[in-house]
């Protein structure tokens, strides 16, 4: 129902000075930590399991289950690493949360570290967010000074050190094993799994990697109890989700929604996106970050069976890739009727080619090839055979690579051809029309002139 969404993560985001410890505490901050430190770590893991919380980084893996997989060999340290690499195009919710309410993440980190038995934890933040790193470091300093971090936290006997680690500008470091490599001071090359981080992660020790929003959600879960949390949302999509809304909408921004909200309401209601800007019609939506299949208007609003599409893992996935998509990271990009699907796809292809780490040939070569073929389209010299070639190249990546970046690059291409083949054909058949569309193609190399 409109206006009824219960805010669990962003309830305090508009309070002035909420990034400061004293204000956060005045509004109940760190009370949940106090409660958690009196419980046993096992019971906290149990609450997270009962909550049904699924990883908010994109894959949607049940968090409680991930936590219970953590190996606990005697005398070996365990680590919790927060994934704040946030580089999936269309996604900016973690940045918002960290900027506005850094202490919510820190409180979540302390509770989660306690539950997992970690005494040292890291928050890995993409380097481009350096100003966020400064906000976090300041908040962490405040927490140390107040006895919320360091030795014997709040007299509980539990010790935790928390550090922020900057990345260096590489989307692939959002992949959890690449992130761990990067945190060890190496290139961000994903590792072959198994072993999984739960067994051999940071410096070979058992490690849990969780997204910012996942860790923040642990705070309300421990506050209200897992069973209560599981009542929010719909089916196996429990709780609330932060959605980053961008593109041709009237009110772009970060919204906390209860999972199960109808997509149509999210796009058109004044409480959320406020409809399409400039009175235009909607053409397509990328619902969960650049990696998920793009859907045309009719399929994003309704499933193939004619049911209203809901913002949930299951409903967005309804119909598989033939007619559905994924909730992913919640990066919701809306395109109006004037948008060129082919050119938009080209920006994605360029992105994945730039970000491939290069370890696997299907990904390294495939992403470059897809970018080149798409460039032929926007340059006006593609042929109809290039559509089939593009389809062929994308189909040869999935399942043949070390990490999922390869298929993340392939899916958007497949979906664009599946739902918008006529546009590719128009690019071939009507090169004159293309000349009117502005486009740029650039290399990312720095070149120094006269200096």
């Amino acid at each position, binding site marked *: 129902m409109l206006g009824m969404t219960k805010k669990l993560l962003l309830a305090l985001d508009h309070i002035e000075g909420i990034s400061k410890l004293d204000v956060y505490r005045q509004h109940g901050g760190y009370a949940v930590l106090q409660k958690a430190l009196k419980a046993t770590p096992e019971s906290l893991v149990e609450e997270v399991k009962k909550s049904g919380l699924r990883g908010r980084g994109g894959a949607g893996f049940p968090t409680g289950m991930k936590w219970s997989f953590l190996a606990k060999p005697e005398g070996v340290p365990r680590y919790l690493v927060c994934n704040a690499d946030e580089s999936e195009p269309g996604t900016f919710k973690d940045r918002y949360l960290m900027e506005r309410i850094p202490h919510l993440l820190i409180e979540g980190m302390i509770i989660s570290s306690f539950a997992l038995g970690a005494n040292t934890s890291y928050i890995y933040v993409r380097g481009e967010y350096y100003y966020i790193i400064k906000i976090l470091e300041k908040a962490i300093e405040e927490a140390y000074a107040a006895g919320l971090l360091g030795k014997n936290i709040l007299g509980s006997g539990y010790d935790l050190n928390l550090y922020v680690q900057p990345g260096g500008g590489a989307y692939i470091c959002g992949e959890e094993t690449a992130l761990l490599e990067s945190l060890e001071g190496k290139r961000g090359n994903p590792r072959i799994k198994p072993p999984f981080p739960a067994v051999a992660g940071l410096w070979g020790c058992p490690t849990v990697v969780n997204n910012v929003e996942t860790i923040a959600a642990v705070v309300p879960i421990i506050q209200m109890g897992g069973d209560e949390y599981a009542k929010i949302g719909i089916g196996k999509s429990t709780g609330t989700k932060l959605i980053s809304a961008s593109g041709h909408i009237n009110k772009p921004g970060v919204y906390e929604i209860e999972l199960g909200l109808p997509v149509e309401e999210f796009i058109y209601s004044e409480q959320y996106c406020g409809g399409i800007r400039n009175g235009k019609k909607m053409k397509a939506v990328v619902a969960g970050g650049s990696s998920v299949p793009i859907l045309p208007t009719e399929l994003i609003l309704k499933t193939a069976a004619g049911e209203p599409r809901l913002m949930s893992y299951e409903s967005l996935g309804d119909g598989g890739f033939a007619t559905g998509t994924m909730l992913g990271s919640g990066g919701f990009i809306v395109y109006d009727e004037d948008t060129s699907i082919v050119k938009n796809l080209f920006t994605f292809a360029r992105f994945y080619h730039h970000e491939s780490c290069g370890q696997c040939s299907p990904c390294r070569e495939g992403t470059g090839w897809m970018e080149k073929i798409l460039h032929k389209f926007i340059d006006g010299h593609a042929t109809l055979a290039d559509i089939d070639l593009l389809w062929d190249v994308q189909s040869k990546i999935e399942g043949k690579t070390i990490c999922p970046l390869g298929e993340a690059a392939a899916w958007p291409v497949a979906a664009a051809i599946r739902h918008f083949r006529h546009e590719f054909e128009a690019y071939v058949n009507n090169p004159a029309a293309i000349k009117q569309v502005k486009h740029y193609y650039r290399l*990312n190399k720095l070149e120094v002139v*006269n200096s």
Partner: protein
Amino acid sequence: MVQFSTEAKAIAEKIIRRYPEGKQKSALLPLLHLAQAEFDGWLSVETMDYVAELLSIKPIEVYEVASFYTMFNLQPVGRYLIEICQTSSCWACGAEDIIEYLEGKLQIKVGQTTPDGMFTLKTVECLGSCGTAPMFQIGDKFHENLTLEKVDGILETCKTENKRSRYC
């Protein structure tokens, strides 16, 4: 020989203490950011060798990392490095117009530096600012919801302040 200032040295030592005994290589990325900020916004071979020495690792371990991550510049850049996002949401909201305008105004192409060494223009991929597109970053500062007028104002402010942009 390159050398950190006393202040930067103290920061570096503090960073190295974040990791367990023997895992000081983990300090590599933070130290490269620090070094880049200390030494004119880019990493020379000499600078990278210095970082290797600080961490007791081989120079090649530094080169391979510095060349992997896009934030590390292996060639000199202007005092202000303008990094403009060109990915989907920004593209859809007019990033190309901003790029074209910047190129005209600065009389350089993407990837180049103005002859006075003031500005370098670089295109980058999504900076997590899609809801406030189009945008660019100069050092750690995000400039969002850009318009051509806004761009004019930002460039003017840069020229007046004339302070090298940095992330950390």
